[in-house]
C-alpha cells in the first residue's frame, strides 16, 4: 500500500471541525503556558514592582492629570515633567485595562494590573506570532511558532510578572503591526494598512524601539520595488500606513515632530516619495506606449530620486533634519558610544552579545533559524522577503547589543518553526512515493485513495485543482518506510522536550528573581534569599523624614522612589546627563569637594551598593569607573579616570590603590569599617579578590546610618554644618580627642578669646 501507517477513516467535515477545535484549544493552552511560565517570580517571591507611580497618578486622577503631572521628587531639585518625557503607551495601556475592569465592577488594584500586564501581553504575543506565521506558512507551523514564542527565554527575560517595562507590551505590538502590514501587502487594502498604522501609533507611544518598525516596513517596500515586484497593493498599503502612522506617531508628545525632522525616519519618507514616483510612472506607462517615452520616464524617476536625495542631504547638513541620534548611531559605529555617550555604554544591556547568550536565550531555535530563512528563500513570496530582511537586520542588532535579543526572538521563533514544521510534516506524512527504484513499482490505480489520505493527514479542505497537481507531484517524493520516520521523529520530539526543559530551567534560574531579591544556592543545594535591598528601602521608608533626599547612582533611582518613597537625585530615566555627572562627581571626589555638592543638592542620605562581603559583583565599586567617566565628560579638569588607576594602570582597591581612589567618597563609603568585620584578619573583598588595608577609614562629613544584613546596601547620613561654625574635619578631630591643628576654626576661637 502507499501509506506507511494506517489512517482511520474520518469524514472531511469531522476533520475540519476537529482541527478548528484543536487549533483553538492549542492556542489557548499556549497562551496559558506563556502566562504561567512568567509567574515564577511572583510565586516564589511576592509581586515586587518598582516604578509605577505615574500609572498610579493616571489611575487615580485621570488622563489629563497624568499628562501634566510634574514629579517634584525625581531628579531633585529639578523635578521632571513626566508626561512629556516618557513613552506613555505602557501607562495608558494599564490605565485603560484598569478602567475597563472597574467599569465591569472588578475591583482590582492598579498595582496588580501593572504586575500582570507583561504576562498577559506575552499571551497575546503568542497569538500574534501565530497569526503572523500563518501568513508565511500553514497553520500547524503557526501553532509551533506560537508555542516557541510563548516559552522562549529570550522573550521571557523582559516580560516576567512584575517587570513593568516598555518592552512588556512592545513585542506584542511589534508582532501585531508586522502581521497587519503583511496582511495589508497581501490584500492591498487601505483598511489593513490603516490598522497597521494604528498599531504602529500605539507602538510609538510604547517603546523607543519603534524606529525598528519605522525602518523595516519601508525597507520591505523598497526591496520589493527593487525586485520588480511593485504593485498597487504595495502602493496602497504603504501609503495608507505611512500617512496615518506618521500622523499617529506625532500625537505622542515625546516624539512630536521627530518623524519629519530626524534621519531615523527619513527612510520611510524617502520610500513614500519613491512609491509615488513609481506609481506615477506605471500609470503613465499604461496610458502612453512608446519606448522613448518610457526611457524619458525612467530618467525622470532617477533624476527625481537624486534630487530628493540631494535635498535631504542639504537639509541634514544645514541642521534642519537632525542627524542620527547617538543611541542609534552607536548601533552602526560600535565604538561611538564608549567615547561620546558613556552613559549608554555603561549599561550592561548595551554590551555586545557573546555566543553563549544566543544559545542561552534561544537554544535549538538558533540553528533552525538559518534553515528557516533558507525555506523563505525557496518560496520567496512578498511576505518571505519581509522575514528575510527582518532576520538579517535583527541578527546584526542582536549581536551588537544584548538588549536587542528581544527583537531577534520573534523572527527566530517564526523561521525555526518553519524549518521544524517542514521536517515534522515530511516525516509524519503517511504517503509513500509510488516509484521505488529498489522495488517493483506499485500497480493499481491509487490516485484517489492517496489523495484522500494526503488531505486527511494535512487536515485540510478537499483539494482544489491546484492542490491535486501538488499531491500528484508529491507522490514522486516522500519517505518510504515507517522505521526511518521513527528514526527522525524520535530525536525531534526529544529535542522539543529538551527545549521545554531548557526554557524552564533558564526562566527559573536566570529570569525569575526580581532584581532586588537575590537568590543564592548553598553547597547542599539549599536556597538562600538575600533581601538586603528591600530591607534597606523599608528602613529608609520608616526611619527617615518624608522629604529626605537620597542620593545614589541612577540604577537605583526607580527602586528608591518606588519602594522607599523618597526623593532621588537621579533615576533610570536618564534624561539629564549633567545631573548624573554631578552625582558621579560627588561619588568620585574627596570629602572636601563632595560635601558642598551634597549640601547644595540638599542630600540627606547617600545610598551605596557594596558586594564585597558577599561577592555580589553588580555593586557600585564595579560601576565606579563609569561614574568617573561620565563625570569626566562634564568636568574633564577635575575628574580624570587615570587617577583612579594604580601607576601600573590597574584598577585596584587594596593597599596599592591610588590616593585619589582611596580618598573618593565611594571608596570610603564602601569600605568604611569593612576591615573591622574580620577582627584583624585579612579583610578580603570577595568580588575583586583583593585585601582591603586595615587602616581605619575616617569619615568627617557623613556618618554611617544603616548597613543591611549582608552589607549590600549601605546608607550614610550627610552631616549638617557644625553649629559652632567649625569645619567638619575639625569637629571630628575634636571629638576624637586630638589637639586642634592650626586650622581656621582654631584661629577664630583664639580671636574670640
Amino acid at each position, binding site marked *: 500500500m502507499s501509506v506507511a501507517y494506517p489512517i482511520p477513516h474520518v469524514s472531511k467535515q469531522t476533520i475540519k471541525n476537529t482541527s478548528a477545535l484543536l487549533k483553538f484549544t492549542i492556542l489557548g493552552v499556549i497562551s496559558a503556558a506563556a502566562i504561567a511560565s512568567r509567574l515564577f517570580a511572583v510565586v516564589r517571591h511576592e509581586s515586587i514592582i518598582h516604578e509605577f507611580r505615574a500609572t498610579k497618578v493616571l489611575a487615580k486622577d485621570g488622563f489629563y492629570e497624568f499628562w501634566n503631572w510634574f514629579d517634584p521628587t525625581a531628579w531633585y531639585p529639578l523635578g521632571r515633567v513626566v508626561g512629556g518625557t516618557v513613552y506613555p503607551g505602557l501607562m495608558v495601556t494599564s490605565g485603560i485595562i484598569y478602567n475597563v475592569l472597574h467599569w465591569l465592577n472588578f475591583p482590582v488594584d492598579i498595582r496588580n494590573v501593572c504586575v500582570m500586564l507583561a504576562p498577559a501581553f506575552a499571551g497575546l504575543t503568542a497569538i500574534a506570532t501565530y497569526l503572523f506565521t500563518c501568513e508565511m506558512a500553514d497553520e500547524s507551523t503557526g501553532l509551533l511558532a506560537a508555542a516557541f514564542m510563548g516559552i522562549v527565554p529570550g522573550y521571557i527575560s523582559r516580560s516576567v510578572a512584575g517587570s513593568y517595562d516598555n518592552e512588556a507590551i512592545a513585542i506584542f505590538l511589534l508582532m501585531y503591526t508586522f502581521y497587519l502590514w503583511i496582511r495589508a501587502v497581501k490584500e492591498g487594502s487601505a483598511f489593513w494598512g490603516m490598522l497597521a498604522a494604528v498599531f504602529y501609533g500605539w507602538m510609538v507611544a510604547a517603546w523607543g524601539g519603534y524606529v525598528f518598525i519605522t525602518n523595516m516596513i519601508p525597507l520591505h517596500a523598497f526591496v520589493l520595488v527593487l525586485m520588480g515586484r511593485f504593485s498597487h497593493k504595495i502602493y496602497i498599503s504603504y501609503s495608507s500606513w505611512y500617512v496615518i502612522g506618521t500622523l499617529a506617531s506625532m500625537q505622542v508628545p515625546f516624539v512630536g515632530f521627530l518623524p519629519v525632522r530626524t534621519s531615523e525616519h527619513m527612510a520611510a519618507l524617502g520610500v513614500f516619495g519613491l512609491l509615488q514616483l513609481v506609481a506615477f510612472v506605471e500609470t503613465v506607462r499604461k496610458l502612453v506606449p512608446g519606448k522613448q517615452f518610457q526611457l524619458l520616464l525612467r530618467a525622470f524617476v532617477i533624476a527625481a530620486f537624486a534630487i530628493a536625495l540631494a535635498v535631504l542631504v542639504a537639509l541634514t547638513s544645514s541642521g534642519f533634519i537632525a542627524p542620527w541620534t547617538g543611541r542609534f548611531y552607536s548601533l552602526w559605529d560600535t565604538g561611538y558610544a564608549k567615547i561620546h555617550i558613556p552613559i549608554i555604554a555603561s549599561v550592561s544591556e548595551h554590551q555586545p552579545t557573546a555566543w*553563549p547568550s544566543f544559545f542561552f536565550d534561544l537554544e535549538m531555535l538558533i540553528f533552525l533559524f538559518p534553515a528557516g530563512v533558507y525555506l523563505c528563500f525557496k518560496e520567496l513570496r512578498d511576505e518571505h522577503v519581509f522575514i528575510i530582511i527582518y532576520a538579517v537586520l535583527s541578527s546584526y542588532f542582536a*549581536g551588537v547589543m544584548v538588549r536587542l535579543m528581544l527583537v531577534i526572538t520573534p523572527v527566530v521563533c517564526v523561521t525555526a518553526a518553519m524549518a521544524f514544521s517542514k521536517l515534522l510534516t515530511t516525516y509524519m506524512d503517511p504517503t509513500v512515493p509510488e516509484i521505488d527504484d529498489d522495488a517493483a513499482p506499485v500497480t493499481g490505480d491509487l490516485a484517489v485513495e492517496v489523495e484522500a489520505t494526503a488531505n486527511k493527514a494535512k487536515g485540510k479542505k478537499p483539494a482544489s485543482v491546484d492542490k491535486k497537481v501538488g499531491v500528484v507531484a508529491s507522490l514522486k517524493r516522500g519517505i518510504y518506510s515507517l522505521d526511518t520516520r521513527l528514526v527522525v521523529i524520535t530525536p525531534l520530539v526529544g529535542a522539543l522536550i529538551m527545549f521545554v526543559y531548557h526554557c524552564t530551567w533558564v526562566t527559573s534560574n536566570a529570569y525569575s528573581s526580581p532584581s532586588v531579591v537575590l537568590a543564592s544556592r548553598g553547597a547542599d543545594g539549599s536556597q538562600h534569599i538575600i533581601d538586603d535591598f528591600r530591607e534597606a528601602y523599608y528602613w529608609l521608608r520608616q526611619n527617615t523624614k518624608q522629604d529626605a533626599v537620597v542620593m545614589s547612582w541612577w540604577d537605583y533611582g526607580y527602586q528608591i522612589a518606588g519602594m522607599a518613597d523618597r526623593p532621588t537625585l537621579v533615576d533610570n530615566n536618564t534624561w539629564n546627563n549633567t545631573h548624573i555627572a554631578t552625582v558621579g562627581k560627588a561619588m568620585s571626589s574627596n570629602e572636601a569637594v563632595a560635601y558642598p555638592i551634597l549640601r547644595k543638592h540638599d542630600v540627606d542620605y547617600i545610598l551605596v551598593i557594596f558586594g564585597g562581603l558577599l561577592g555580589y559583583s553588580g555593586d557600585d565599586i564595579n560601576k565606579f569607573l563609569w561614574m568617573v567617566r561620565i563625570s569626566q565628560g562634564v568636568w574633564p579638569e577635575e575628574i580624570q579616570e587615570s587617577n583612579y588607576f594604580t601607576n601600573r594602570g590597574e584598577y585596584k582597591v587594596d593597599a596599592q590603590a591610588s590616593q585619589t581612589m582611596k580618598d573618593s567618597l565611594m571608596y570610603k563609603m564602601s569600605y568604611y569599617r569593612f576591615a573591622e568585620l574580620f577582627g584583624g584578619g585579612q579583610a578580603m573583598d570577595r568580588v575583586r579578590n583583593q585585601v582591603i588595608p586595615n587602616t581605619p577609614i575616617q569619615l568627617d562629613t557623613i556618618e554611617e546610618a544603616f548597613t543591611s544584613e549582608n552589607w549590600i546596601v549601605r546608607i550614610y547620613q550627610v552631616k549638617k554644618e557644625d553649629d559652632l561654625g567649625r569645619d567638619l574635619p575639625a569637629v571630628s578631630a575634636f571629638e576624637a580627642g586630638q589637639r586642634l591643628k592650626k586650622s581656621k576654626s582654631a584661629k577664630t576661637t583664639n580671636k574670640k578669646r
Partner: protein
Amino acid sequence: MHFGRCIAALVALPLFAQAANKSKFVDLADRSKDGIIVLNSALYEEILAPDVATPDGAKGRDYAVAVVLTALPAQMNCAPCRTFDPIFHAEAANWKRLPKDQRDDMFFAVLDFSDGQAVFQKLGLQTAPNLQFHSATVGPHKPSNRQLSVNYDFSKHGFELVNLHNWIRSLAPHAYEIYKPFNPIPYVVAPMVIAFTIAMGLLSYQYLAPLFTSRAFWGIASIVAILVFTSGHMWNRIRSAPYASPQGFIAPGFSNQFVLETQVVGGLYGLLAASVLILSELVPSIKSSAKQRMAILLWTGVLVFLFSVLVRLFKVKNGGMSYLNPPTAL
C-alpha cells in the same frame, strides 16, 4: 668590555649630573628630528629627578616628561613596540611644532630595554611598551588635582595616534593639535576611484546583473550573514577578542569568547541547519528506499551528534547547568 663601559658611565654620572640641568634636555630635544630624547638608565633617572634647582629655587622638575619604555631591537621580538614607535614619533613631532617657550615644558623620551635594563628591573616591568607620563613636580605646570605620574593603558586606548594624542594632550602643560599636512591624494585619487568604479559597473553590468538578481547569491549572503552574527562575531569585533589561547580554543566564562570558538560555533550552527534542510528537502527526493534509509540514518546521526556537541560546548561555558535539578520551590 661593553659591560665595563657601562660601569664607567654610572660612576661618572653623579659628577656629570651636577652640571646638567633642563637646558641639556632642551638641547637634546632640539637636536633630534622629532624632539625625542633617547635615554639610558642614568639619563632616565636624571630627567625625572634633576639635581639642579629650577630658576624659582624649588627642587624638582618644572617640566613634564612622556617616556616610552620599549624594546625595539629585532631580537627582542616585540611587535607592539615597533608598531608604537612611529606613532610616538609622530606625536612627538606634533608637540615640536609648538613655539620654543612652550615646547620646553614637556619632553618626549624613549628608553630602550637594551640601554635601560636597570630601569626595567627597578620598575619590575615584564612587558613593553610602557608609556609613562610624569607631570611637572614644581613650577607653574604642576597639576593641582591629579597624580604626578600616570601610565598609558594600551589595552584601553590602543595604538591609534588620535587616542594617544588625546591622552597626552589631557595631561600636557599646553594644548596642541595633531599636525595634518595638506594631502592632495583624496582630492585626486578619490574622484578617479569613483569614476573607475562607475565605469567598471557600467561595463560589467550585463555580467554582474545576473549575480545581483540571482536568488542563490542573496540567499547565501543572507544565511552566511546570519550565521556570522548569531555566533558572536560582533562581540569579537567590539571587544577585539584574541583568536585563541594556548590553553585551548574555549575562553573561560559565560560572557567571554575567542574568535576560533565563535567560528566553531558558527560552523556547528551551519552544519546543523544544513542537516535539517537535507533531511527535509533532499532526502524525500531520493528515489530508492535503501539509499534513502542510509541517508536518513546518516543525517539524523549527524544532527543528533552535532547538537550534543553544541550542548556540551555550552555546558563548558555555563558551568553547573543541569535541567534535572530545578531549584527547590519555596
